[in-house]
């Protein structure tokens, strides 16, 4: 199999009239999706986009999947961009891509006017209007290789510039074969898509649907603030399976959504993105006692997930839910600080991954690629690349892998992977900020910013809103007279952190 288009084509043959994707207002069958994608593909192939990035600035939806598949027919790879992020960040991403065009709608066209060197904007409707040029698509098909990129997903970068993870067809096929088989996803499933499409959690929905012939029901983003809307949608659309970010599942439990309604056909709940709090997992299990629950682990760089754990026992608050064991065809192992393998239970090591699942690195960023994708230090004999996740893990007594912590200053907040360094780099751009330091209060789920400089917290928060996505703007601002320093002259994070905790305790005592 050379490309994921074979998934689409097989499903279009088997289930031509079945709904492939549906959103709030529209839907398309597998046959329609193939037809529309070929139209867009023909228009794009005429421009020539083999092995080129094609940014798509659109909300997730039926139109968008037609465009994404069109890009793939034309031999290009898609980069879905979130219109809600600040123009500055969007500009950074577009200049990294050096793309000639951006596919978008009216709102996106307006937004892109303010971004220098954004490339030509193309209205997506224009691409779906023309005919299909089968001969042209055939010439693309003749050249196709499974190592061609399928998509690029951008993640936070510690230097202040987002990094674009490039993933090939081969890696997605490798993962999807295992993923659908392992958890028994079939054409009878209805997948409730929560993840935004600039997140690789969505890859599991899109390709599980295309591969098996399951319908993907795209849930509007706004529904996640309002449990009644969300649960009505899941019930009315007959959703059977969720592959959601942990933070999305926690919304339902935090707002006690199931006191209103429990969707009757739901039988599989899979989650990833951060550690699932046991209290929230137990809430879900109480209302869905017969459903399968799966903890999935892995960064974008290894194509969605590299390990899984099917919940098979009770957990009490404070227990660690394992990340389990590797998917077939992936090798997941721990290395200690001297690059020796850790196999005994209880000892921590960095989680490392090898296999077809490895991404092709970071787009136009050779330096960062070479730092993260390296030769397996355990193999002196031939080339074997591994990805060093930066996550620390250990085996429990049952031999299951468990996540422990991060090795650096990357955090998980609201399902987003964030480098605190990227926030600090943005703070440096704000006038009057002399120095700054951010820490993450994991217990209270707040990003805390300490800063030195003559600026009010409201002004600072507003300025950061222009530079960073919402979820990266700190929740708490603390002005300090002077940054405490360590002996080596670095900002003393530990001292800031303990002073912050003391001040919270004092406040509690006052109340």
């Amino acid at each position: 199999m050379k490309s994921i288009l074979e998934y689409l084509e097989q499903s279009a043959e088997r289930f031509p009239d079945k709904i492939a994707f549906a959103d709030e207002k529209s839907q398309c069958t597998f046959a329609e999706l193939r037809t529309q994608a070929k139209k867009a593909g023909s228009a794009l192939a005429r421009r020539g986009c083999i092995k080129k990035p094609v940014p798509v600035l659109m909300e997730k939806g039926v139109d968008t999947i037609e465009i994404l598949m069109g890009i793939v027919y034309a031999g290009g790879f898609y980069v879905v961009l979130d219109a809600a992020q600040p123009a500055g960040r969007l500009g950074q991403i577009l200049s990294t891509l050096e793309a000639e065009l951006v596919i978008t709608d009216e709102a996106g066209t307006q937004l892109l006017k303010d971004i220098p060197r954004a490339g030509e904007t193309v209205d997506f409707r224009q691409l779906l209007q023309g005919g299909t040029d089968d001969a042209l698509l055939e010439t693309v098909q003749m050249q196709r290789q499974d190592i061609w990129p399928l998509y690029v997903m951008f993640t936070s970068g510690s230097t202040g510039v987002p990094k674009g993870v490039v993933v090939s067809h081969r890696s997605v096929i490798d993962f999807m074969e295992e993923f659908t088989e392992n958890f028994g996803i079939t054409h009878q499933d209805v997948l409730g898509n929560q993840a935004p499409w600039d997140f690789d959690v969505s890859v599991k929905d899109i390709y599980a649907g295309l591969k098996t012939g399951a319908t993907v029901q795209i849930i509007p983003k706004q529904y996640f603030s309002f449990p009644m809307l969300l649960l009505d949608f899941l019930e009315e659309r007959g959703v059977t399976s969720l592959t959601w970010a942990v933070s999305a599942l926690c919304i339902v439990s935090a707002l006690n959504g199931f006191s209103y309604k429990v969707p009757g056909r739901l039988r599989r709940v899979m989650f990833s993105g951060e550690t699932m709090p046991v209290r929230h997992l137990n809430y879900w299990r109480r209302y869905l006692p017969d459903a399968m629950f799966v903890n999935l682990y892995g960064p974008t760089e290894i194509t969605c997930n590299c390990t899984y754990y099917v919940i098979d026992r009770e957990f009490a608050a404070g227990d660690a839910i394992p990340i389990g064991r590797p998917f077939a065809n992936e090798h997941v192992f721990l290395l200690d600080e001297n690059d020796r393998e850790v196999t005994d239970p209880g000892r921590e090591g960095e989680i490392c991954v090898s296999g077809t699942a490895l991404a092709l690195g970071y787009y136009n960023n050779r330096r960062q690629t070479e730092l993260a994708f390296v030769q397996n230090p355990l193999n002196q004999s031939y080339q074997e690349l591994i990805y060093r996740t930066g996550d620390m893990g250990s085996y429990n007594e049952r031999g299951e892998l468990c996540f422990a912590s991060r090795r650096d200053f990357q955090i998980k907040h609201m399902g987003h992977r964030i480098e605190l360094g990227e926030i600090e780099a943005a703070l440096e751009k704000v006038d009057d900020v002399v120095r700054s330091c951010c820490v993450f209060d994991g217990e209270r789920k707040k990003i805390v910013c300490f800063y030195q400089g003559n600026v009010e917290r409201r002004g600072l928060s507003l300025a950061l809103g222009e530079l960073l996505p919402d979820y990266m703007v700190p929740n708490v601002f603390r002005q300090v007279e002077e940054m405490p320093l360590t002996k080596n002259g670095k900002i003393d994070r530990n001292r800031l952190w303990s002073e912050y905790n003391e001040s919270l305790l004092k406040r509690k005592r006052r109340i």
Partner: protein
Amino acid sequence: MDELMEILEEICPDVDFESETALVDDKLLSSFDILSIISEISDAFDITLTPAEIIPENFNSADAMWNMINQLRN
């Protein structure tokens, strides 16, 4: 009402809560903002919001939120 305004301005300093009446419908509040508001007002006013209260109409304006809070306090 002052306490509510303080909470709202802390969470979303760039939104004009005095005059906006379509905070949800015009997408001025993100889902994260709404969750933060729910959590902060639950703590501050010692109330429990059920799914029946967490609907767009109750969050479209500061007045709507204030009415909801008062109903729950009684």
